[in-house]
């Protein structure tokens, strides 16, 4: 039987997910788990997740593929291959393989667990939940599975279930720090501050890295507008991990939002430190831009807001701040242009919401879809237009209206000015 271990993070939520979404990785006969460490049988590889350093990646994959082919009824052999692909930047392939294993071996808790954890990492909790909950039901003695099931539920806003699975993990492993951290998050969103605080304290007693606990504590105090305690907790987090951009960004919020403007300069410095660690984080660029606006550093603010717009998933709202920053910097025409774009964005959002509502109410109504495409074209939202057309079934694609719109969209999809709103 395979043995799995936690080895590394894979994902972007390190601050919150310490130990929660670390992938189980094959390491020959040895295995490390969060709470019971066994030394690996061979020196660790520099390749992420690769525990078979004596072969090249291609050779290793070929060998695993052969093993999987020779043992078609062995889920472990197939899993080895899937996990190898996952850890070697072939995530879409790994996803397909894991789905196939999960379908072929529905009783394999390991397959369910791996598939669920992959979906969680990909940011699809709705797809992760079913396999993880199935795995948790079958492997009630494995705390790490219970914790991931809890995380999936938490992400789906199913707080009662999240709490139940986290508690189940603690029943198996009372020293599971990750379960306490997750409980703290659940209580932070759906419980009392006191409950959350108590869970964080339990986490801090057990965790090797206290930083995520202090960060969560700081966030909680920040939400309560308790500047002093928020700053105190966050400084503890930064003592443990000064290279976390999220921590610096929160420090910026605490300085900027909770101190009546008296610590705006410190807020700006904190945001800049965050950006040194996360140079492409649109939210931090936006926060810095707004802080600079408050300090009346209009030109610098404009630059930051433009950077924020480049990577923001929905840059529309940023047009408002950008417009005002430009106006105040004396760039009246550009400022007015940005505000006009913002107004267009608002109109687009309002109209598209109405049409999306009509489509949701009657998915067969192609006229609403075409109206949405026309709206997208009018506001130069070509990506959204194409996505809307692509959602029409094969029958609809034969219609003249679809083909005409498709031609328009494809023609328009050449590079264009102005932001994509969504």
């Amino acid at each position, binding site marked *: 039987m395979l043995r799995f271990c936690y080895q590394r993070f894979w994902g972007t939520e390190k601050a919150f997910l310490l130990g929660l979404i670390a992938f189980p990785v094959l390491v020959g006969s040895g295995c490390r788990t969060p709470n019971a460490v066994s030394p690996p049988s061979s020196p660790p590889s520099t390749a992420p997740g690769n525990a078979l350093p004596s072969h090249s990646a291609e050779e290793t994959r070929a060998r695993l593929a052969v093993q999987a082919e020779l043992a078609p009824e062995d889920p472990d052999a197939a899993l080895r291959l899937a996990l190898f692909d996952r850890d070697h930047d072939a995530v879409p392939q790994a996803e397909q393989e894991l789905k196939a294993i999960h379908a072929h071996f529905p009783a394999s808790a390991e397959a369910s667990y791996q598939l669920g954890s992959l979906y969680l990492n990909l940011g699809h909790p709705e797809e992760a939940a079913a396999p993880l909950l199935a795995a948790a039901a079958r492997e009630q003695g494995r705390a790490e599975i219970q914790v991931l099931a809890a995380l999936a539920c938490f992400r789906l806003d199913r707080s009662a279930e999240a709490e139940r699975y986290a508690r189940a993990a603690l029943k198996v492993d009372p020293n599971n720090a990750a379960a306490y951290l997750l409980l703290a998050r659940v209580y932070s969103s*759906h419980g009392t501050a006191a409950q959350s605080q108590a869970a964080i304290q339990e986490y801090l007693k057990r965790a090797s890295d206290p930083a995520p606990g202090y960060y969560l504590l700081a966030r909680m105090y920040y939400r309560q*507008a308790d500047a002093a305690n928020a700053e105190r907790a966050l400084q503890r987090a930064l003592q443990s991990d000064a290279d976390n951009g999220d921590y610096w960004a929160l420090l910026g919020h605490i300085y900027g939002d909770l101190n*009546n*403007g008296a610590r705006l300069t410190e807020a700006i410095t904190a945001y800049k430190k965050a950006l040194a660690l996360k140079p492409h984080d649109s939210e931090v660029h*936006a926060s810095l831009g707004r802080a600079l*606006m408050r300090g009346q550093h209009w030109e610098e603010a404009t630059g930051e807001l433009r950077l924020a717009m480049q990577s923001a998933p929905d840059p529309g709202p940023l047009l408002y701040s950008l417009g005002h920053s430009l*106006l105040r910097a004396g760039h009246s025409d550009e400022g007015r242009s940005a*505000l006009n774009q*913002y107004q267009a964005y608002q109109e687009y959002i309002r109209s598209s919401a109405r049409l999306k509502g009509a489509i949701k109410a009657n998915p067969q109504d192609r006229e609403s879809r075409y109206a949405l495409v026309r709206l997208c074209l009018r506001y130069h939202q070509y990506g959204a237009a194409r996505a809307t057309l692509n959602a029409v079934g094969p029958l609809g694609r034969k219609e003249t209206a679809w083909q005409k719109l498709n031609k328009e969209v494809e023609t328009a999809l050449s590079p264009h000015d102005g932001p994509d709103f969504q």
Partner: protein
Amino acid sequence: MPESESPGCAFVDFDGDGRPDILLLNGADWPEVKAGRQHTRVALYHNDGNGKFTDVTRGSGLEIEMHAMGVAVGDYDNDGREDLYITCALGPSHLFHNEGNGHFKEVTQQAGVENAGHWGTSCAWVDYDRDGKLDLIVGNYCKWTPATDVACKDKDGKKTYCTPTVYGGEPSRLYHNEGHGRFRDVTRSAGLTHLPGKTLGITILDYDDDGWPDIVLANDTEPNCLLHNEHNGTFKEVGLAAGVALADTGTPRAGMGIDAGDIDNSGRPSLLISSFSGEGFSLFQNQGNSLFRDAGADWGIHAPSLQRMGWGLFFFDYDLDGHLDALVANGHLYAEVARFHPDLTYAEAPLLFHNTGARFEEVSASHGADLIRPLVARGAAYADIDGDGDLDVLLTANDGAPRLLRNDGGNRNHWLRVKTVGVKSNRDGIGAKLVLEAGALKQTRWVTSGSSYLSASEQIVTFGLGAATNVDRLTITWPSGQVDRYTHLKPDRVLIAREGMSKVGE
């Protein structure tokens, strides 16, 4: 849905005895409720002048069953008596003409201000064309009726109130006073039909000091509107360009109550707007070039308001030190909010912000146990109920008794209260600009209608003078353009300022 968002209240000196009386609005059972139906009505309380109020509703002409929301107090026919306009969530609004002798007459239909078919909210009197007659702006909320109610569910699958985003908005309506007790709906010709609606609060101000009243609409989940008066009977929406439409994140907040006031004694009115828990209230500071900045965080409004859901609010100088303070009435929308957010409560304490001259400090905890007792507050208004010069506070509650808070000790400083009486301008002097200079203090205030949430404060302007024992100069610029100047006024009294009749040295 409307039952969660009402009611308001008003201070109105309906009998002209110089003492502010109280009008309380109430909701009503839905029309289809027959058995056990409560025949609720508004309630009018006479200020007896001895610390007591007497219910004088019976026989007042106000005993009409209605689902009342907001109220505006104003003398629309310039007969010297305060009239009442009351908006309703279901059914038309009501205009009550003050006939004198404690009696009101409903004149809605003949006046043409029914606002029929709309869910009316806050409202205000404003002489937008400066013709000496008060016009009427009526806020409307959204396209909701019991028949079109959407069944939204909470996380436990229980029915709960939908957010207003589920419903389309209804734009505000503007009624022009044609004289002879008649109004004309000029919403379209004034250019207001395109507004997003979902208006809960209205304030009147002259933000660019051009002498013409502008209008701000606080909208719920929609951008706030700043309607610039174009001097020709039309308004231009400039909220986006002026910087009052949205939070600085570029997203609309849940705008509820609103007031305008000169918080920094710059001579320019800034704006305070309450909103949903987690958003923080907006303080838009007027920078003087037709631009505002969201200064809530810098002025100390943002942090204390993060965990409150604010409704009625107003600027007032409660300690008469010459700087406008602010009070915000709070209370959550959802009775069961603690089930989902255990750190939040349905009943919440009001917030009292003391203005230090450069920022606000939240000081409610040191201003009496009655002030900080939690309440599911909605409406809020102020007036000097006991004639001692300082301003007292009335709060209404959702499904509960109102709270009248007497300000004891606010008058340790000197003060001057000014009641404007228009002659060429509208009789109330609504829209008049008053600039007072006393020693180093220079304050600018305006006679207003509207503001807060569904409520109406007294129209008398109260100036705090601090330690100053003499008012060097008081300049009143009337809506008619008339400018009256008073010099060397003694403090601690009410000045009746009649348009065109100022006497230097009075």
